[in-house]
């Protein structure tokens, strides 16, 4: 396959990883732990869309752009609420406990969601075909073939990344998030309600995960309760690769990993080792740049 083709495919996949990685990295920024349940929020986003799709089709007609947009926005809102609830119920009571306690709780929350959803009374363990939210076309441009959905994912992700940058760098809430990330106590001395900032961060990260989950499902053969695990791990690697806690780093790490996976997948005999290669690269980078690609070792003057 043409290398340019590989690159665009990789970027489409990578931008999804980037969206997920942002959630990991933002939560790490404010709470200093990895929210393992993040990958399950992604799955819940895809399932929200799955159940919303027929209802929206009834209102807006099949595969309408407005219907797809409404589905995405509603799924994001549902997942934002779920993310906020997870923090409130599972993590907040442990705020003052050692991080290991919280980390293990996060794994527990993740397993709880996965196995609950696998139950027949909830979603069931079987793979379900994901509804076609939009009409698909093959686009040809400069010798590259691209599914219209992939292009859409790429464009929407770029828009979301810019929006995220704007929120974090240019709004008051974003400034509060950065302040809390640096020093929670100092932020509270400025009048920041730290709990509210943490809730907002979970909500925002989870909404992005929902969008990513839907995009991922659009490319996948189907959806099932464990579907978040693989992209979740990749996005986690991406976040660490880029420098955990660093937003542009998460985006960069996601894109890199997506390209890498696509390229490796195209080489015969290598494709089976994709995850191994991803981890090997992560380890190599962490040896030479322990803070990740864009992470800075914070120097604190005393």
């Amino acid at each position: 396959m043409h290398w340019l083709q590989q690159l665009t495919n990789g970027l489409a996949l990578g931008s999804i990883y980037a969206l997920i990685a942002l959630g990991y990295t933002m939560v790490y920024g404010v709470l200093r732990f990895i929210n393992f349940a993040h990958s399950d929020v992604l799955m819940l986003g895809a399932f929200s869309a799955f159940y919303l799709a027929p209802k929206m089709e009834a209102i807006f007609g099949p595969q309408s752009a407005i219907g797809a947009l409404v589905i995405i926005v509603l799924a994001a809102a549902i997942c934002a609420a779920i993310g906020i609830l997870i923090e409130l119920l599972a993590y907040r009571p442990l705020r003052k406990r050692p991080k290991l306690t919280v980390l293990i709780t996060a794994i527990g929350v993740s397993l709880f969601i996965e196995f609950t959803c696998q139950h027949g009374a909830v979603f069931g363990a079987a793979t379900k075909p994901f509804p076609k939210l939009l009409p698909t076309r093959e686009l040809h441009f400069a010798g590259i073939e691209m599914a219209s959905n992939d292009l859409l994912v790429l464009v929407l992700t770029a828009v979301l990344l810019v929006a995220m940058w704007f929120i974090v760098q240019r709004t008051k809430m974003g400034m509060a998030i950065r302040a809390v990330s640096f020093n929670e106590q100092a932020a509270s001395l400025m009048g920041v309600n730290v709990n509210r900032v943490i809730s907002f961060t979970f909500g925002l990260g989870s909404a992005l995960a929902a969008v990513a989950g839907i995009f991922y499902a659009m490319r996948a053969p189907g959806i099932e309760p464990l579907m978040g695990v693989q992209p979740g791990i990749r996005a986690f690697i991406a976040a660490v690769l880029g420098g955990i806690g660093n937003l542009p780093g998460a985006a960069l790490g996601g894109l890199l990993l997506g390209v890498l996976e696509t390229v490796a997948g195209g080489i015969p005999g290598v494709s089976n080792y994709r995850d191994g290669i991803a981890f090997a690269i992560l380890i190599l980078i962490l040896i030479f740049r322990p803070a990740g690609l864009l992470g800075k070792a914070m120097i604190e003057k005393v």
Partner: protein
Amino acid sequence: MLELTDLTVGYGGITALHGISLKVEQGTIVTLIGANGAGKTTTLRAISGLVWAKGGRVTFEGEDITNQPPHKIVARGIAHSPEGRMVFANLTVHENLQMGAYLRSDKANFAKDLDFIFTIFPRLKERLQQTAGTLSGGEQQMLAIGRALMSKPKLLLLDEPSLGIAPLLTKTIFEQIVAINRDLKLTVLLIEQNANLALEISHYGYVLETGRIILQDAAAALRANPKVREAYLGG
């Protein structure tokens, strides 16, 4: 304006404050002196809600504010420039000052107050777009005080503003504290290793020893007190 009554604070097993009582009258500069580990920082942290008071009461303008969360206490008009400065190293100087004004809704006055901060600490103006982590220790201290002032507080809590700062700069900072107190009628509760300097600019002082207040008097009287001279003023 501020009154602590029989305040007790502990960390885990150890008691840092054994029921201290003190008063800060409106418009005054009050200083709290004491050796390392006496509990000075703990006192300020209890006032601003960063640590939990086990017993006793903190009242501000006649209202009980004991154990309220920090963001609610700031909203009442108490600003705390903490030990170790704690400026947001990842934010620019300008953003740090904006954080100081976080709870204020009067956007119109922001520029005016910023200008006021620049008149007392001109250095900050030159560094406005720089990230705070790249400032020198003294500049960070100015920023910490400026940031606290941006909330337009009624009471300013200052924890060791001279720590790690050249004597000349310390002098500037102390002159500014006096000016702020005089011109803005801002009440100040000051903690300072350099007891001499602190008592010089204060109206009233308390001496803290291992979590208990052992002496209190007008600042001038404390400076003349032989016991204080021997223990805290270098004889």
